[in-house]
């Protein structure tokens, strides 16, 4: 109270003091960043838990739905079932790492340069529309997020290629996906980094195709350096050639195995921070696909195993839309424009979940500015999923839809996400493993 009185007279000094106060109390900043629903959950006029948003009522709640999805609902392609907003609390070690290191984190002169980020969320502070680099900071929060924890596997992972108009499932590919952080580790030993790590890798993604026969044993390995200015090293093992091919990284903007996704789309955004010009557009309360997997309608046919686990069912037009519930959540809307003028994407508009810094919704526009693709990644609470995921503090990627609205085609994804270190040894993320695993 006293501070605000003085501020009236000494506006400039006050501004500085307020900022300093914020920095000087990292606990508060961190709490706000990681526990936005501690005191209350967002509400919106006309929106209530349990309601179904469809063609008849979308107009009344349009501001709570991202524009692309609002259009799909208006078209009658799908509906949204509104669920209760729940807290997806990330692992306490990640929160602690944020507290420990946040004051040392600084952006470099150019996009893609950052120092002091050892682990945790680099920039837990609320973004500021007046900060020209706010979007970039949010991009770093995503990149160094606790997206799959220190490691995880989607084991297995079903991708189905579908025709939006005919609903024909043209092709289904069964994968295993594995993720491993070499640095920024907070939970599983060794922390904060795996050593030795001579190329200073930040992360690796390893993908193995299990079915169908023509692409069986195809494997993809992506090595991402800690230095964001360095390009990924990517390797592809083709089962029918039995050898590893180095990939030109330009191929990350290419359709991956004929799906509607490019490698750059993985997990929401899988490129370099420095590949984009980032712009923070604002903070909104928007419906995002967050849910408890065990309470959803499950697909009885695609997957079955001894765990009794089943994957999320899909429906709606073309069978492209996951049958899940959505939560009204605090969202940072961020625009990313590719630096490379030959990039096929004109811009991406991300709806980043403020609590988890996952990217459950992305709208992708072509270079003419027309909506091209729409990406949805359903986030499941780890405590209502497989027993092994309980208490991991990982927001589980659990279902996806990439809808190419121009082509009238979609690729859907059904996950069995497992935060299980035993599935992701470092030896899995090597070129040699691809040869050894292949025939």
């Amino acid at each position, binding site marked *: 109270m006293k501070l605000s009185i003085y501020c009236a007279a000494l506006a400039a000094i006050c501004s500085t003091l307020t900022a300093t106060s914020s920095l000087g109390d990292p606990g508060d900043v961190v709490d706000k960043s990681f526990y936005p629903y501690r005191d209350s959950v967002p509400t919106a006029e006309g929106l209530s838990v349990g309601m179904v948003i469809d063609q008849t009522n979308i107009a009344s709640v349009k501001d709570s739905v991202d524009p692309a999805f609002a259009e799909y609902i208006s078209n009658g392609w799908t509906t949204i079932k509104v669920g209760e907003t729940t807290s997806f609390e990330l692992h306490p070690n990640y929160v602690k790492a944020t507290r420990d290191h946040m004051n040392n984190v600084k952006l470099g002169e150019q996009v893609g340069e950052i120092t002091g980020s050892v682990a945790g969320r680099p920039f837990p502070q609320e973004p500021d529309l007046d900060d020209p680099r706010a979007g970039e900071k949010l991009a770093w929060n995503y990149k160094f997020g606790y997206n799959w924890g220190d490691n995880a596997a989607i084991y297995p992972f079903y991708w189905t*290629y579908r025709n939006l108009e005919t609903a024909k499932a*043209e*092709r*289904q590919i069964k994968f295993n996906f594995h993720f491993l952080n070499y640095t920024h580790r907070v939970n599983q030993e060794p922390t904060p980094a795996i050593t*030795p*790590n*001579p*190329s200073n*890798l930040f992360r690796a993604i390893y993908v193995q195709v299990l*079915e*169908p*026969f*023509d692409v*069986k044993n195809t494997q993809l390995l992506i*090595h991402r350096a800690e230095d964001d200015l360095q*390009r990924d*090293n990517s*390797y592809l093992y083709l089962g*029918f*050639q*039995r*050898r*590893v*091919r*180095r*990939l*030109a*990284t*330009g*191929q990350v*903007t*290419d*359709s991956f*195995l*004929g*799906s*509607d996704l*490019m490698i750059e789309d993985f997990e929401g955004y899988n490129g370099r921070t420095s590949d984009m010009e980032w712009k923070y557009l604002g903070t909104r309360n928007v419906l995002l696909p967050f849910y408890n997997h065990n309470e959803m309608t499950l697909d009885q046919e695609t997957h079955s195993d001894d765990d009794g686990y089943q994957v999320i069912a899909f429906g709606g037009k073309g069978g492209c839309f996951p049958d899940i519930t959505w939560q009204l959540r605090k969202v940072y809307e961020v625009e990313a424009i590719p630096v490379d003028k*030959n990039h*096929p994407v004109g811009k991406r508009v991300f709806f980043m979940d403020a609590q988890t810094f996952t990217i459950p919704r992305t709208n992708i526009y072509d270079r003419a500015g027309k909506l091209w693709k729409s990406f949805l990644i359903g986030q499941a609470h780890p405590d209502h999923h497989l027993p092994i995921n309980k208490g991991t503090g990982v927001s589980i990627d659990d279902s996806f839809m990439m809808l*190419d609205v121009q*082509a009238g*085609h979609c690729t859907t994804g059904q996950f069995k996400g497992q935060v299980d270190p035993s599935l992701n040894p*470092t*030896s899995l993320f*090597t*070129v*040699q*493993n691809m*040869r*050894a695993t292949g*025939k």
Partner: protein
Amino acid sequence: MISNTRKRYSPSLGLMTMLLCTIGVNSAADDTEWSGFSEAVTHYRDGPGLSKARVGFQLEGLKFIGDAGIFSNFSINGTLRLSYDGVYDLNDDEFGDEAGGPIILEGGLVNTPHGQGFVNGPVVAGALGLVNNAFADPAVLAMTNPNQGLRVLGDHLHPQAGGVGFGVPVRPCDTDSRGCLRDYMDADKDELAAPEIFSDRLDFIRELYIDGTIPLKSGQQIDVRLGKQQVVWGRTDLFRVLDVINPVDFSRNNIYDELEDIRIPMWILHTEYRMGSNEVFDDINLSMVWNFDKFRPSNLGQCGTPNAILDAGCFFRGMKNLWENGGTVSNFAAVPDGAGGTLPGLQTTDFGPNQIGIRNVDLPDWSLSNTQLGFKLEGVIQDFTFSLNALMFRSHLPSLRGSDFESVNAFTGESAVFDHLIAFDVAFPRVKLLGGSLDYYAQSIDTVFRMEAAYTSGEEFANTIQPRLFSESDVVRYVIGADRNFFMRAINKNRAFLLSMQVFGQHLLDHETQSAAFGTIGMPDWEENWIATALLKGWWMNDRLSPQLILAHDFRGEATTVEASMDWLISDNWQFIVKANVKLGDKQFQFDDCRTCNPWGPFTATPAHADPFQSGSVGLQGFEPLGRFRSGPIGMAQEEDEIQITVRYRF
């Protein structure tokens, strides 16, 4: 007729069974996966017509066991393959029991049917008074080597044109055993049509191996794979530089099938010490390959079958037939005219058995010293992946070693060892290989470069200078490849095209040629040559429709292959592939054919031989038999334009 002894070669199979028992495999908690396909493959060749009508079935199984004794991730893997090619029945007058026919061979004065050479035993006895001569008697040849079921060597590529030519039997070896090379090129029709079922080497078991990892306390691993398998070294497509551990079956579709389908799996122990990362390398591994299987050469294709790479099978079969039965050779002997000169041209000549040709095939028996051992150090450092390779092996390709054995002098009938005589044994020399590979992604041009190089010693090449008509040469081979993905948004918005280019170089470091009176003599292989390949591939309909264009050009051979294909994945199960494989260029090469090698001086001496008793070539040239080494595999297949259709059902 050659009798086919179908010895089942299975000690390795027994060894693997024993090992499975030893490590205590418990299959109770296993996962088993099955997949496979059946297919119908039809090739239609311009000229001969149907050249393949194969139906095939392949079943792949994986039994994952997990922990087993000292192993983790233990599994048993197998691939069974069966096929039947109906072309030997459906087009039997080209490739089956009715193939070939009577032939005419060219001579300076007169062309004569096979078996009725202008120069023959009675003629030589009469004209030269050499009553003990061993040239063939046409009456005998008519019985031992009749003029039926034959083609003239190379007749589909070039005329005899004053050069060497002779008849080559083209029917399966159960129909016509002439010229069949025991255990090498002696397939009967059943073996040609259903090679896996009637194989002597259990080829229906395409692969069968156990695979496991021994985890070490340090976190490092030892991977072990034991059994019948393919081991792939190298980074190249279409041609091989380092990828030489398994022999290759070129009889399936020349060089144009995926190596995955035409490598001949061998019984191999493959171990890999995976050291992981250290302060220098992101990943470093040392592997050992011990191919303990009985030696097996590459399958070059038997004469009379649709795919006989370099037409080597016909050359060999014709030569073997000449050795065993004698026969007629075109444009060979110079005949005195009785007035101190010679008749115009060189005349068809009937050689007797055991004079010229191929005597034996020396297929190495199994012994420890005949097994093959290789090491590879492979790793990742910064932006580079690399390997260093060393391999001691037997060449999978044959070498013709001139006679160090006795053969018959056609003029005198005496048996002796003759220098520069075109009488050979087929051998598979020991070769040492040192090599390496590297790939690098060049960010600035968004292109991946692949490099591979190998230095070999011990390889043998034809050489008409040398008394035994071959010599060793160290060889450097390399390939530089570049892969680039690029978009043409106007025709494909979402999917990049792949452009992959490669240049292969081969340098014979001990190459030898000389000028002689009638032309160049020495080694017919090019001292240095390059083959360039380019692949352009696109994908539409979510990768279900994929057109592809492949170009391969042999610079010194002046020959080009263009293969355009369309691969349509109708569904996850059904696949349809259509290809047009067209060869461009009609260049054929002549080289010293050793007609003027004077092995039986003074009778075979020419005016260019200063010493009529001294053997050695003076370089008379012809297309056959050595021009093939200059034409190369592309040039020698220039009459094999094909439309190829595959329908495959996968499960």
